[in-house]
């Protein structure tokens, strides 16, 4: 099977390249540039510490993005179940390895990076749901019995992720999955009753949470209760953001972040460092970039002429935006510290890779929006 087999015959390679969503690529590169600049600053003006690796990963990921985008969407449709299956195998593998290694290991060491299968699994879940709803009529989509497959598709990986235990990722998969079911036309009352049900079950779930998870929520509700522990991070992050002011302290001048008051400044708290140094201007600039990305993805999804592409593009977009919201809301003290990276910006291989794979699929939906995806 040569690569050209995966490409549609009625377009030349040059045409396809031109049809790539270059606007989206520019937006992605801009967000990544914010990340690399922040990592350079986080290392105290040291490019080699984090920024270089991040740049290399981004470069490799961008090549992957273009390759994925140029493959006809119908092949991705056909490969959905194998991909889902491989993702599940990797999750089971880390689960077994984690038990053997006596610790909560969530990654596979690939040598050059540590791969977290749960990140990639999210995309596989979205693909599987898109495929499931692709051939469904609205009547089918409204039928409760049609929900059996989505529930299995969502909760099989959720169960494995919960065993790791990684509550944050599990919730993310559920939310992304729910968004897919919602956009495919499942009845509204289903979601209302799910929300009510979830609210009621909070006290029950509370019993099953790990102590550190309970503590995070408690600290979130009352940060002052633990000024030396988890609340300390939120307080320090808020001080750093607030002290940045409108104009920011200037590149490499972020005092709070640099003095190690801020933990994980290169990963989860990278947004804090960015807005401390670049102020409200920098923050709004980054939020605008995200806004444009959301709109572009939405547009791609709406312009797509087949259900698989629509659901896939929007599903990936929702997943991406969930990360953006959760991370930024967390560092600004709006929600508990859950440990979610800011996609494309935070230091980390898997989240970068997952984001770029997702955008590759979205762009494939854009290029091959007329593709005849077999039912």
């Amino acid at each position, binding site marked *: 099977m040569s690569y050209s087999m995966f490409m549609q015959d009625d377009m030349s390679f040059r045409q396809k390249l031109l049809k790539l969503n270059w606007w989206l690529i520019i937006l992605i590169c801009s967000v990544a540039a914010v990340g690399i600049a922040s990592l350079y600053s986080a290392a105290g003006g040291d490019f080699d510490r984090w920024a270089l690796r991040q740049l290399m990963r981004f470069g490799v990921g961008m090549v992957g993005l273009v390759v994925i985008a140029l493959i006809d969407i119908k092949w991705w449709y056909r490969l959905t179940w194998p991909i889902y299956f491989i993702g599940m195998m990797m999750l089971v593998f880390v689960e077994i390895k984690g038990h053997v290694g006596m610790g909560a290991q969530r990654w596979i060491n690939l040598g050059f990076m540590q791969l977290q299968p749960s990140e990639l699994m999210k995309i596989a879940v979205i693909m599987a749901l898109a495929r499931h709803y692709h051939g469904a*009529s*609205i*009547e089918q*989509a409204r039928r409760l019995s049609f929900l059996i497959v989505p529930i299995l598709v969502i909760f099989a990986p959720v169960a494995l992720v919960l065993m790791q235990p990684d509550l944050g990722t599990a919730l993310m998969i559920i939310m992304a999955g729910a*968004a897919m079911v*919602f*956009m*495919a*036309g499942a009845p509204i009352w289903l979601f209302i009753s799910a929300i009510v049900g979830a609210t009621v079950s909070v006290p029950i779930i509370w019993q099953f949470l790990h102590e550190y998870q309970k503590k995070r929520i408690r600290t979130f509700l009352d940060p002052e209760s633990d000024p*030396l522990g988890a609340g*300390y991070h939120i307080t320090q992050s*808020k*001080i*750093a*953001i*607030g*002290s*940045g*002011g*409108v104009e920011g302290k200037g590149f490499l001048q972020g*005092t*709070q972040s640099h*003095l*190690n*008051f801020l933990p994980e400044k290169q990963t989860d708290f990278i947004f804090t460092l960015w*807005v401390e140094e670049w*102020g*409200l201007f920098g*923050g*709004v600039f980054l*939020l605008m970039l*995200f*806004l444009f990305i*959301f*709109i572009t993805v*939405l547009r791609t*999804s*709406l312009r797509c002429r087949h*259900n698989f592409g*629509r659901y896939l593009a*929007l599903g990936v977009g*929702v997943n991406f*935006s969930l990360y953006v*919201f959760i991370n*930024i*809301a967390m560092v*600004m003290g*709006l929600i508990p510290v859950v440990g979610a990276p800011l996609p494309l910006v935070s230091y980390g291989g898997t989240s970068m890779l997952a984001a770029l794979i997702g955008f590759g699929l979205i762009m494939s939906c854009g290029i091959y929006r007329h593709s005849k995806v077999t039912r």
Partner: protein
Amino acid sequence: MHHDEYSEKIFTRRAFFIGSLQVIGLGILGSRLAWLQIAQGKRYKTLSDKNRINIKILPPPRGQIVDRFGVPLAVNAQIYRVLIISEQSDDIMASLKALQKIIDIDDKDIKRVIKQASKTAKFIPIKIKEGLSWGEVAKVEVNLPDLPGIFIDVGDIRSYPYRDATAHVVGYVRSVSKEDLEKDNDPVLRLPGFRVGKTGIEKFYDRALRGRAGAAEVEVNVIGREVRELKRKNALAGKRVTLTIDGELQRYAMEVLSVHKSASAVVMDAHSGAIYAMASYPAFDPNMFVRGLSSEEWKEVTDNLGKPQTNKAVSGQYPPASTFKMITALAGLKAGVIDKNTFVFCSEKYEFGGKSFHCWKKYGHGNVNLVKALEQSCDIYFYKMATKVGIDAIADMARRFGLGQKLGIELSQESAGLIPDVAWKKQVLGQKWYQGDTIISSIGQGDVLATPLQLAVMTARMVNGGFAVKPWVTGYLGDKFLGHKKWESLGISKSHLKLVMQGMEAVVNGKNGTARSSRIERKGFEMAGKTGTSQVQRITMEQRRQGIKNEDLPWKQRHHALFVGYAPMKNPRYICSVVVEHGIGGSRAAAPIAKLLLEKSQIRDPARIQMQPEIAESGTSFPVLWPPKKPIYGENNQGDF
């Protein structure tokens, strides 16, 4: 197609709904950001500029080490040091240069500070120089306004008032090494200038002496000055260690050993096993090690023939020579080969298996029984007996008396010595055991090796009625008693022990005793013992013929001089063993030292207080440290760990 259009319509509607949620979400994030940075911006700016929270590690004061009377052997002295906080100086090089003009500072130190400053956070102080004199402190203090970032600080430093006298037992502390950091993750190790125990008791009880670090959460202003303390967890002071050592006796032992090039001695209690003094000369000044040695000082310590860093009292292994004869005698008595009336004729030479074995005395001792054989240290008596007893019985007796094994003293470097037997020779050397080996082993030569500590323990077990005492130097850790009281019986006949002791009494007090010149004349203080002279090299026939005296040989080839003894003779309490390396003869070099030590021991009588020290006797008056009614150094009364 109708259905498709309908579902497309629903999808479009729901996609727009999701899209608006995303926009609203971004709106919320943007508003929150604006609120934090505009509305709250000023507040957070002051928080960030004016005050930061800093965690400061509070080092615990190290526990004291005191002797049995409570006299300090290792204490914490105060030391002045000059430090710099690079954040408070615009140009640290300029500050350091200015400081260099005021007090004497090495260029090496300046370089080190600059290097360290580039690596550590700017608000962490860096040590420039330690151990400042009063004059230097005053000079720096006066010029402080011209020295931005520089300040003077008082810190603790370990000090050993007895200097080299207690160097081996007490040990010393030294800067934390890389290996220490790998083995131990106590955060206090990372403090600048922190030190850990490296040898002796300082090492053995390092964890207990160290205590636990505390922590203070302090608010610091923009230039790093502490504004106020928010939270505090006090440090838990290290525990005090009370040794069984008598500091003054220890110092005296060091003094009397110092007439020789290299020697060691142990004074211990025959009944309890407590060590009163353990000296190894030459030693070193541990205070030097605390502050760090210059290369010349280091060379001086390592090049010394007497190996100052080695505690020879526990790690030096010597052929015990004639001091081993009591063991052979006890083995012979037990086997029934001899009794007190067995006489042997000594004619200088003993021919066995075609070889001749010599007695040390020219023309021999004539007819001798056991007591006489010990008194005059006749070799032939033991040669003849040993061939009948056999090596395995002798080796068994030696092990009963603590030879050939580690005795478990709280000091590293302890050696096991060596008691050879048939199995050992086969296993280690792969050779058959010959009677000739038994003959030379019977007088503690050949492969037999023992440490001064083992020789003292051996003697203690002989004179305390045959109980298996073991040596110990730590009386109390904090207020927990660690000493020992009851010892098992070795199962040796009392009459045999008495006979051997008669021999040892004769050695010192008999008409022909080898140590007669070292006897203690003071009534009631008499000592008994046994001399030993161990060959470092075999005496060749050539030397014997030419009559070359041992003292004509180079130092390294001369015999070792040994003595084991006890006093008072009638009611033994103090045990003393002395080894003078290459001291030529036990009676001329080792016995006089033992005499002095046993005399001094009885005068000072450290055993009169069984670990119940009250008042120090070293001239200065010390506060009553024992028993501790309440923690004096803050043990257990601080912190809420």
